[in-house]
């Protein structure tokens, strides 16, 4: 393999319901730092059907080049079709680095693509850097429930591939003057032959906003005493534009569906703000949230392990604190209006 043939940083954009989703912009923030250091172009790759919204936005948020494949057969995620197209794009344009978000999409398509290309892939990174001289991507990720961090590299294979935690990084400040180049690609019909048939999508009514997609997550545990009390967490989350998470104990009690579970056997998150209410802080729970930017805990037990990972904690009864907090936030919002 001629490593030097490979140049440039690619980010795998995501399209949902025809619209470019926010992770696509976050990825550009991750990619920008690397592309600047390596002095190469930063690209976004977008696959979809009848893609709405402004491709120009991708330039405004950092992309120099946008590769677009827009075809009616790309309306739904058919993994064989998507991976075939990415493979063709990579073989033609030869990027040295490809990063995707560790969403269900990224975590499916990236290992498929890495297997096709026979290269390395590092999952769920919380930090990326590069060794400029060697042009090697340094990928740092937690493993074993956040107990260990490892820095991983792919020294001899190209491209170097990584998925990164969604929402661990903000998009760049928008620059409306920034422009770029769109490369529109078409592929012949045999590229769209699939072993999958998409049937339907049913929105989860219990979640306004999925926890993996939120900057703010308010989680409840067994300390809430009753499923009814989750209503308060929803109220609070709504005021903060956030989503509601839960400990496994709360899920096991049937207070909230499994899709809300945070932790080792649930979702692993890095939101900008995480609040744990009535959660003891078992290692398996901490595994899913310890890399959050800011952590607040409310627990009536002063020795609860959750306080160790908290930036701010209140020792007290959550059932008394929550109503006061919600009221206070309502007042704040009214004042600001």
């Amino acid at each position, binding site marked *: 393999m001629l490593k030097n043939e490979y140049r440039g940083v690619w980010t795998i954009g995501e399209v*949902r319901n025809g619209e470019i989703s926010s992770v696509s912009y976050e990825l550009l923030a991750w990619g920008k730092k690397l592309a600047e250091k390596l002095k190469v172009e930063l690209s976004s790759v977008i696959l979809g059907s009848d893609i709405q919204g402004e491709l120009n936005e991708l330039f405004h948020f950092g992309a120099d080049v946008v590769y677009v494949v827009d075809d009616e057969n790309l309306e739904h*995620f058919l*993994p064989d079709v998507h991976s075939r197209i990415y493979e063709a794009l990579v073989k033609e344009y030869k990027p040295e680095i490809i990063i995707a978000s560790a969403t*269900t999409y990224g975590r*499916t398509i*990236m*290992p*498929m693509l*890495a*297997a096709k290309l026979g*290269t*390395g*892939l*590092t*999952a*769920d990174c919380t930090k990326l850097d590069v060794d400029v001289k060697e042009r090697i991507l*340094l990928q740092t990720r*937690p493993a*074993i*429930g*956040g107990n*260990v*961090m*490892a*820095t*991983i*590299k792919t020294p001899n294979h190209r491209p170097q591939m990584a998925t990164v935690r969604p929402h661990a990084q903000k998009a760049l400040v928008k620059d409306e003057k920034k422009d770029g180049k769109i490369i529109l690609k078409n592929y012949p019909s045999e590229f769209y032959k699939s*072993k999958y*048939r998409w049937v*339907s*999508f*049913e929105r*989860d009514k219990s*979640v306004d906003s*999925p926890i993996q997609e939120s900057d*703010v997550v308010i989680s409840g545990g067994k300390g809430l005493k009753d499923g009814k009390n989750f209503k308060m967490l929803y109220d609070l989350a709504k005021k903060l534009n956030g989503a509601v998470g839960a400990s496994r104990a709360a899920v096991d009690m049937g207070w909230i569906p499994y*899709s809300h*579970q945070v932790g080792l*056997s649930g979702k*692993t998150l890095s939101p900008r*703000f995480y609040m744990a209410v009535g959660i003891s802080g078992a290692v398996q729970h*901490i*595994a899913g949230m*310890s890399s959050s930017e*800011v952590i*607040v805990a409310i627990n009536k037990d002063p020795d609860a392990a959750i*306080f*160790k990972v908290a*930036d*701010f*904690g*209140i020792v*007290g*009864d959550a059932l*008394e*604190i929550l109503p*006061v*907090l919600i009221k*206070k936030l309502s007042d*704040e919002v009214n004042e600001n209006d």
Partner: protein
Amino acid sequence: MRIAVLVKEVPATDKVKMDEKTGTMIRSGMESELNPLDMYAVEEAVRIKEKFENVHVVAISMGPPQAVNSLKEAISMGCDDGYLMSDKNFAGSDTLATAYALSAAIQKLGNFDLIFTGERATDGETGQVGPSVATQLGIPVVTYVSKIEKISDEFVRVCRSIEGGKETVEVELPALLSVVKEINEPRIPNLAGKIASKSKKVPLLTANDIEVILDKVGLSGSPTRVVKVFYPKLSRDGKIIKVRDLESAVNELVEFMKQKGVI
């Protein structure tokens, strides 16, 4: 119908140590268990066996000799056979090399209609092995499967649990499904299962047995390298206050949230 379930033995979650020099996990002398998330894969396979006739379920694991225990556990839950791929040539495999070796074993054991994996292993936590195995075998993969709606000879219809809801897709067989915890409630092995697993022989498969290219397994077959391993400081030494009067405690929290830009 033949079903394979890929299971991994992992360190018991709360006691894991790493060797800082080599960047590998210290596995000896540590308690191990069947990856908790793989139990859902085993359970789902066994449920299919119980529902249809002529279903044979084979559990396959790659790991050190002691991983035979996890295969025995899978057998005690209802798998018919277990195979352990153990060979020093496999040591140091990353997800690409692991998936290559597993796909070679799957091909060797032959003719599977369905392959199940867990969502991810609780040690490496990549979730990459399933999609990579499927791709290396040239078969489709469906990830995050939370329900199997229908199985026929040619295809399977499943629900995927993804951001914001449930997606239903159909896929041709053979296919690999990686399942999430939502899919079922794994059984606790009963006495008969435990007895069956005791007497069952778990054949060992070496690199030679599964006819792998040696350069594609182990460290030499792994594109990735661990450069550095460190233990992050999880504790944050945050400010912890006791509630004396509710109003002022909440005020202090709100101030903190403002300062952090949450409000």
